[in-house]
Each structure stands twice: as C-alpha cells, then as structure tokens.
C-alpha cells in the first residue's frame, strides 16, 4: 500500500483491506438487527452494549479508511496532527448537544407529567387548568 511494501504486496493489501471493511460492515448490520429484536430491546444494558459496539466498529472503519486507504499513516506526523487533532473538538460538540437534547426531552416529559397531575386534580372543572405547549418555551 505504501512505499514500504513491494507492488505485489501493496496490491494484496488493498483486497485484504476491502475484505476487512466488508466483514466489519456485515458484522455491524448483524448486530444492528440483533439489537432491534424484542428480547434485546427489553434488556436495556444489552441494547446499549450492542449500540456502543456498532459505534466502535464504525470508528474502526473510519480509522482504517483514513490511515490505509487515504495513506495518513505514511504522511509526516505534523500533517496527520493538523488534520486529526481538530476533529477532537467535535467530541465536545457531541457531548454538549446530546446533553442539551436530553434536557429538551426531560422538559417535555415534565410538562406531560404536570398536565396529567393537574388534569386529575381539576377533573370536575378542568377549565383553565390545562397547560398547553404554548405556555412553555421549549429549547
């Protein structure tokens, strides 16, 4: 694949890499279908474990494409660092936005719960007790 290999070796390396990516993809799809089964959905830790495993496999595929197919492993270290290090900024983006998304979900559930409590309390005279979505500014 790179200068350190002979032409013949680098040719076989491509087909091996291709086989690896295809195999990982097949495993991912299999795990995804497994995760969608009813028994897996009902057992939360397994569901989360399978989802994380799929994410890790995808990141491995990304690593392989960048380092072997795109040749990053054989570039000067400075080049690799200037391209790869900024990507880690996204880690914070993922954490912050997903935390925020989860908070929106929490707000929605809280509103729903309050509506339910008040609809029970004021059951005989519900006028004015129903909180509609417009009463809250979401997100």
């Amino acid at each position, binding site marked *: 694949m790179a200068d350190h290999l002979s032409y013949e070796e680098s040719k076989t390396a491509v087909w091996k890499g*291709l086989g690896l990516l295809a195999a990982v*993809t097949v495993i991912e799809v299999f795990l*995804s279908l497994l995760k969608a089964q009813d028994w897996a959905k009902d057992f939360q830790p397994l569901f989360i474990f399978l*989802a994380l495993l*799929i994410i890790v496999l995808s990141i491995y595929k*990304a690593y392989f*494409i960048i380092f072997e197919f795109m040749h990053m492993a054989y570039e000067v270290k400075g080049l690799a660092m200037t*391209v790869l290090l900024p990507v880690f900024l996204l880690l914070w983006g993922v954490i912050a936005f997903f935390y925020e998304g989860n908070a929106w979900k929490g707000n929605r559930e809280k509103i729903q719960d309050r509506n339910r409590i008040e609809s029970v309390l004021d059951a005989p005279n519900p006028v004015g007790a129903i909180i509609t979505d417009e009463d809250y500014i979401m997100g």
Partner: protein
Amino acid sequence: MAADTDIFVENEAHADPHHSEGGWDGGDKKPFATSYGKLMMWYFLLSDAFTFAGFLIAYGTLRISSPSWPVPDAVFATAPFGIHNLFPGGHAPLIFVTFMSFLLIISSGTMVRAVQEGARENKRGVVFWMLLTVIGGAGFLGCQAWEWNNLISVEHMTITTNPFGTYVENGVYLDPATGEPTDEKIEAGKTYLMHKAGESHGEGHEGEHFEYPTAATDAPGYMVDDRGYIHRKFLVQDGFDEGAIKTQAFGPVAFGALFFGITGFHGFHVLTGVGFLLIILLNAGSGVYAGRKNGYEMVEKIGLYWHFVDLVWVFVFLVFYLL
C-alpha cells in the same frame, strides 16, 4: 491545479530557508513533505468533515430529544424488484442499504488501485481502475435514487411530513368498519407507516383490506386527514391513558428533513465526485498527467476526496440505519 508548485526548483542561494533575503522566490522546502495540492485537499476535507459533523450532531440532538423515533429496521425495509417480498413478512431490513454501502466500499478499493497504478506511471491501469470506481459511484447514486423515489412516491414521506410514527403504549387496533376493539395488537416501540387512502403502498397485502374513503373522514375506527393519510385508531391498554381511544399521529417532523437533507448532501458529494473522477479519468487517458511526471498526483488528490465520501457514508450509515 497544483502542477506548477510541484516542480522542484533547485536554487543554491535559497537552499537554507532562513537566509532567503533574495526575495519571495524561496519556498523550495515543502511543509509536511507533501505538495500544496494534497495538503489543501486534506484541509478541505477537514472543513467538510466539520460540515457533516454539524448535520449529524443536529440529527442526534433532535433524535435524543424526541419521545419516540422511527425504528430504522422498519423504515428501511424495502428493496427494488420486489426483493423484500422474498423475506419473511415482506420486510428486508437494511438489506438494500448494506448493498449500497458495499458499492461505495468497493469503489474505494478500486480507487486505491488506481492511485497505485498512477504511482507506477501505468496509464492503462489508472484508466481501468478509475473506470471501475466511476461505475461503483454511479451505481450508488442509482440506488439512492431508487431509495428516495420509494420513500417519496410510494411511502409518501416528505421533508415536512413523516408518516413513520412509533407507538409509545400497548393496546389494540379498532376495527375500521365498526369501531370495535379487535385482537390486532399494537406494541410500544413498534414503528408504523401511515398509508394514503386509495394508493398502493408497495407492501404485500394479506387478506381482505378495508376500503378507506379518500375524502377527509372521522369515523369511530379511523380518521382520514385532508391530505389522504389514514390514521387508524386504537385502544390504549396500559400506562396513564389506559382505556382511552387514540388516533395514530405522524412521527417526528424533523425526520424527513434530516434524512433527505443529510443523505442528499452526501449524495451530492458522490455526484460531484463522479464528475471529477470522469474529468480526471479523461485527462489521464489523454496523457495529461503522464507529461507531468509526478506519479499521477491528480489521481491521488481525487482519490483522497473519494475515500472521504466513503468515510462520511460510514457515519451516515451508522446514525440513520444502524442505530
């Protein structure tokens, strides 16, 4: 593009970059031991990665914030030529998108081969492997066109209407004819597709179907809205609303916009990639790069772009189809 900068100018006076009083014509020392063109392709791809990451993070945020989300196995369960009918229940979950992924991965492999042949200054090899890459890319686009067409004209999803809803409670359907509870169960977490009255929806039919009117109707057992979507009614059998009759609702609105927006943006990258591959393929074939004697560097640069398109698909595939 960067052919000029690739010419190595031997200039004794400026051999040491720290003594370049001679003017602006130094710069024979390449940063990161690579050409200007390749370096800038890497930085372009970095910026593009941030664009895609922004879109995908938006998708994740909205998905996490929603009480329910369409299950990918239920949404992406069709394939061309009725292949999905060969699977149990007429559902072929993720089969077609897996095929699409393979097309893109294989075209990435053939691209590596083209770059390798370029490094050996083998014109015929470059043209042959680039041609296969173009075919792979075009095949992917064709598959995506089928997928979009199926979602838009068969399943009636638009960027603002998402007919894929998901139940959050258990219960039973009401009979559309009588409005009485049936023994047809609904389960929390199961995704349903709301059909349009009077139109085929591309799925296998079992037994006799109730004929829904095409005009807006609110019957005891179902509701047809003014756009013709059929909302079935069901009896909730657990949770807070136990005993209540509910009507099927549309799924999260953002789903259609996110799906068409993000896969469309990726598909547009594939489309431009195929275009550039063709241009460079023709140039390579007509001997433009052979004359430059730089190991077909242009092929290497489009190769970087093409692998990036494959790389983005890894993540689009992950968030839309696998998770």
